[in-house]
């Protein structure tokens, strides 16, 4: 037992070290990007007709008169203390803002990954079973289609058809205008909040609004999940135990779902975790289309007014989420796969 533990501990230390270095590099990157901006950050704060004195004051306050490495150390100090400065638009600390909008995006992304996995995994399995037949080709085109659509455009067309045309779903935003402010904010996950408050009308309205953006986002991530599922499944189907199970008299469906599927579960979990991270990218665009008050909209609205401080904090947080998801998928792999124990 002991040597295994030591080896695991060693791997843990190695991994922690590599995460630390990546995080540090992330900070350097955000710092550098934040500095190469051609627009003057001091001007953005003091305004066009500030006196020279005021300008100089702010200039010094922000630490621009110091050498670059000292500025970086100051930046590092702020980050370690979770002090990301104040957003120009809201006048609140950036971190408070982000924590406020993040639940909306998590809600959207979680629904989307349910759609993506719910679509991608069965399709991938079906494609593997019907390898090279027309079903396989059809599934390939269908899933690549989702991957090739510009998500902001799909969102508009979706709104045009299902909201304006058919009236099946709610339009922009997280709920109907009518209900805004009715439910007390507790977790800021609207579905949870409204359920907690027992406001079922709000709950339905929220559900009605999330269906379309989440489905489109999920469809866009289904391609990756389908492809990976198909390839994992093909690996299994070619193995002897599958033949054995078939010889024993199990039907093709039973063999695939009872035996082969169990063996690809672990790989699928890690794939889905990674796909979850890439949903953030789509969220930036689809939130703009659906006026979804989440992380993506916060990022783009600050981009347009040139608040680099808020933007770089968003970028930093996305990077951290990505690293965390990688770590989680790695961990899940180790927990679920007995061979790695």
């Amino acid at each position: 037992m002991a040597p295994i533990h030591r080896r695991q501990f060693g791997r843990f230390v190695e991994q922690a070290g590599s995460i630390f270095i990546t995080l540090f590099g992330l900070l350097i990157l955000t710092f550098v990007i934040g500095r190469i901006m051609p627009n003057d950050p001091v001007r953005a704060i003091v305004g066009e007709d500030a006196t020279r004195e005021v300008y100089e004051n702010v200039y010094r306050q922000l630490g621009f008169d110091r050498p670059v490495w000292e500025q970086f150390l100051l930046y590092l100090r702020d980050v370690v203390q979770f002090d990301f400065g104040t957003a120009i638009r809201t006048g609140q600390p950036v971190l408070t803002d982000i924590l406020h909008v993040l639940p909306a995006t998590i809600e959207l992304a979680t629904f989307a990954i349910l759609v993506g996995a719910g679509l991608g995994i069965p399709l991938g399995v079906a494609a593997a079973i019907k390898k090279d037949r027309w079903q396989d080709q059809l599934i390939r085109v269908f899933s690549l289609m989702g991957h090739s659509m510009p998500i902001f455009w799909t969102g508009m067309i979706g709104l045009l058809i299902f909201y304006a045309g058919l009236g099946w779903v709610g339009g922009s935003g997280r709920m109907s205008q009518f209900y805004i402010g009715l439910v007390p904010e507790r977790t800021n996950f609207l579905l949870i909040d409204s359920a907690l408050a027992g406001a079922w009308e709000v709950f339905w309205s929220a559900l009605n609004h999330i269906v379309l953006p989440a489905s489109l986002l999920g469809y866009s991530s289904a391609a990756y999940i389908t492809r990976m599922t198909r390839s994992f499944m093909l690996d299994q189907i070619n193995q002897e135990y599958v033949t054995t199970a078939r010889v024993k008299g199990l039907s093709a469906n039973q063999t695939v779902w009872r035996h082969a599927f169990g063996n690809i579960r672990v790989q699928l979990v890690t794939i889905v975790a990674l796909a979850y991270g890439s949903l953030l990218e789509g969220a930036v665009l689809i939130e703009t289309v659906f006026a979804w008050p989440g992380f993506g909209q916060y990022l783009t609205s600050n981009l347009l007014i040139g608040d680099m401080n808020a933007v770089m904090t968003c970028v930093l947080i996305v990077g951290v989420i990505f690293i965390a998801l990688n770590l989680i998928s790695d961990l899940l792999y180790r927990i679920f796969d007995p061979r790695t124990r």
Partner: protein
Amino acid sequence: MTEKTPYATRPAPDLEWLRSLRNIVLYLARTPTSAFGLLVLVVLVLAAVFCPLIATHDPYLQDLQNTLAPPGGAHYFGTDELGRDIFSRLLYGSRITLTIISLVTIVVGPIGLFVGTVAGYFGGRVDMVMMRLTDIFLSFPSLILSLAFVAALGPSLNNAIIAISLTAWPPIARLARAETMTIRKADYIAAARLQGASPARIIWRSVVPMCLPSVLIRLTLNMATVILTAAGLGFLGLGAQPPMPEWGAMIATGRRYMIDSWWLVTFPGLSILAVSLAFNLLGDGLRDALDPKQMNRR
């Protein structure tokens, strides 16, 4: 001096991979999905080259008497809010798309090759530092990182191309490194080293040519992502600026008139979808054609 050194018989790659390229194209043309991809790309290139001849109107010419006209005989895809012909604008937009694709390729290929081959050839500490750098860039979704770069540099088409290039090189570098690692120990490299060739010469003359085919394929695979990122930046107003007929930007302006005039957003969106799907299908086909492991499974 006249006799050729017998041991420097590196396989002449040029002819051989031209032939295999022809085989690949033939293979792709046989599969319906990749054939569709090839077809769309040929149409795209033809549209870009001949757009002054095909276009029915000047893409920048405003006609305020005739705004938001629905698709019909005079304007195949209708007109936009300033009365400009959407069909002609789409045609000229294909030039922008092709510009983005080729510039990104020209920038990303060499950077990725340089980082990858140098890291792979020297190994050790150089490798560690360079790959760590690559990993940091890889730890962002490409759109978010491009957003940050464009925000810092200022919105314009050129800056969008720079930003996309800055985020697109890491996968290339990883691939070139993997290729380099497999040939680093080969006899002909050792022979070159014994002849006294400098590392720079060995990398340039012996390593890079061997990495080139797989890097080119990988670049093709990435084009779908590049196109979608560029369109996304254009949509957010960070890419090509009006009045340029960039497809993403056209969707952004058309959004305001979407409910009454569906054609403003539909056709540019379909164009983006077609090109990006073409690259995806082509990439999928290429992967099947070239990956022996996948071949066995098929």
